[in-house]
């Protein structure tokens, strides 16, 4: 299987005041196309840092990060922006929708960076909203939607530009159990029916059960791996 994501000896450290904090220590990881990977671990273990490196939001202090066949650890800020627009769909814990825009307009935002016509953008937005079951809520603003619905809109936004990789940071972290299950079912369906490669950071073991592989991080090192058969 082809590795969509390949991390080799990746290290990351931050400067906190005068102190150098080592967050990741020489991590090696391959994620293959069509995989649904759950990254677990206690707070401060480096999960989100690793996710940010894979999504091109941050740069490692050592090692190589290759995503979709490209070394992204050497790209400039400007090149990374355009790379993210093309390859990454991001789902946040707190949805992070733009509150002044309707659901449709929120989903359309990544498409503004493409050369698609207004008509084509609108068509794609409707398809994405249909995919997450919110075709009838397109005109609603985020504050008129429930938490689960807002996260569905965020997933539609992440999918609309058809990215190589879907990156989810605690996607159920702000949801009740029922809404969390709905979101996880949706992500699993996207992985299984659409073949979307998904990398998800979560604290929630129940959410991790939806993934096809589960990795545990502790103190910046991969310590455990659980592989599941597709249901």
């Amino acid at each position: 299987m082809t590795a969509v994501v390949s991390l080799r000896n990746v290290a990351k450290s931050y400067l906190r005041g005068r102190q150098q904090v080592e967050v990741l220590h020489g991590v090696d990881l391959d994620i293959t196309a069509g995989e649904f990977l759950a990254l677990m671990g206690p707070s401060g273990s480096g999960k989100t840092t690793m996710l940010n490196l894979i999504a091109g939001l941050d740069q490692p202090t050592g090692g190589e990060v290759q995503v979709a066949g490209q070394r992204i650890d050497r790209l400039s800020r400007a090149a990374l922006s355009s790379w993210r627009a093309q390859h990454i769909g991001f789902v946040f814990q707190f949805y992070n929708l733009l509150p002044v825009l309707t659901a449709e307009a929120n989903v359309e935002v990544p498409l503004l960076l493409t050369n698609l016509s207004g008509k084509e953008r609108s068509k794609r937005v409707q398809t994405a909203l249909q995919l997450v079951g919110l075709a009838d809520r397109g005109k609603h603003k985020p504050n008129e939607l429930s938490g689960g619905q807002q996260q569905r809109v965020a997933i539609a936004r992440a999918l609309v530009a058809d990215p190589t990789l879907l990156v989810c940071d605690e996607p159920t972290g702000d949801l009740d159990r029922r809404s969390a299950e709905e979101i996880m079912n949706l992500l699993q369906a996207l992985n299984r029916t659409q073949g979307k490669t998904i990398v998800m950071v979560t604290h929630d073991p129940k959410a991790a059960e939806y993934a096809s592989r589960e990795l545990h991080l502790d103190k910046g090192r991969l310590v455990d791996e659980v592989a599941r058969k597709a249901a």
Partner: protein
Amino acid sequence: MKYFGLIWAGLWRKRTRTFFTMASIVVAFLLFGLLQGLNQGFNTVVTNLNVDRLYVSAKTNMTDGLPIAYSARIKAVPGVRAVSHWTYFGGYFRDAKNPIPAFATDPEPLFQIYRELKVKPEYMEAMKKTRTGVLVSEQLAKQYGWKIGDRIPLGTSIWTTKQGSSTWMFDLVGTFDASAFGGFPSFYINQAYFDENAAFGAHTAHYFLVGIKDPHQATQISKQIDALFANSTYETRTQTESALAQMQLKQLGDINFIVNAIVGAVLFTLLFLTANTMMQSVSERTPELAVLKTLGFSDGKVLTLVLIEALMLCVFAAAIGLGLATFVFESGALRRIFGNFGMPLIVMAMGGGTALVLALVSGLPPAWRARQLNIVDALAGR
């Protein structure tokens, strides 16, 4: 264009704050338009004034007046083409709220000096034959619906009649075309009628108007006229039309300085207000801007979005303010005072330029801050 919705929505994120900021900019540019418009208008009027006309007034003060008998001596000065005179009558029609710019004068030479004013010969003849006659500009006649043959009562708070009345009666004998002066409203009465009826101030004039044959001799003739009356009871001061206009404007203060000082202070304050609004707006939207960057918006694109937002705020509000100023300029109230005095195009251009500068200066710091935003820190709330 495709980013318009995103920018517009960002602009109105806090409706009340944006509304009040916009209202401040509208008021500032209304003030800018009105003051700069008046300033430019005065400058244009002064620049376009004729140089073959001289104005002679009392050296001490225009209101002191000069004996009308000076007229013949001035006319005898070589190079002088015609001499007339003005006594400011003022007055109002029906109500003091309707001021009328009326002058007692010798009409025939007046129209020879002001060749831009067009009067029909029959009206001038009628004026000469009618002591109580009055010639008014077409615009003023139209404004009050006066027709030839109408008897017009004019109230005055200065010139009471010998009978103790503050109302003078005049007969409209003709109108004249004053379009060369933007239709400037004027009301000319016979000096003879004024002298006969005024309780005081008869046979004196506030200004002698002197038409000269060669504008190049204006300075020399001015000196000659003043020399004629040097060391007399009523010494004179002779000036060209533009010098007089400038002096009268100076009496109101240095309009240029005042206007520029007021507008400068207003815009300087506005700069801080707009910058503060934009700074707050960007600060509140830090996570949203980080999300845009996460989705692939480059640093430059985010900077541009914030700058365009500031531009939309300033330019949109400035356009409303300047539009209102234009509307005020074309309103009846100002036209009654200044005639056809439109908003000069240069003021619109200056206003547009100022709005652009305001937007760039106030928008650049928050835009730069948005550009420099680190995604990871911003999303983590650091």
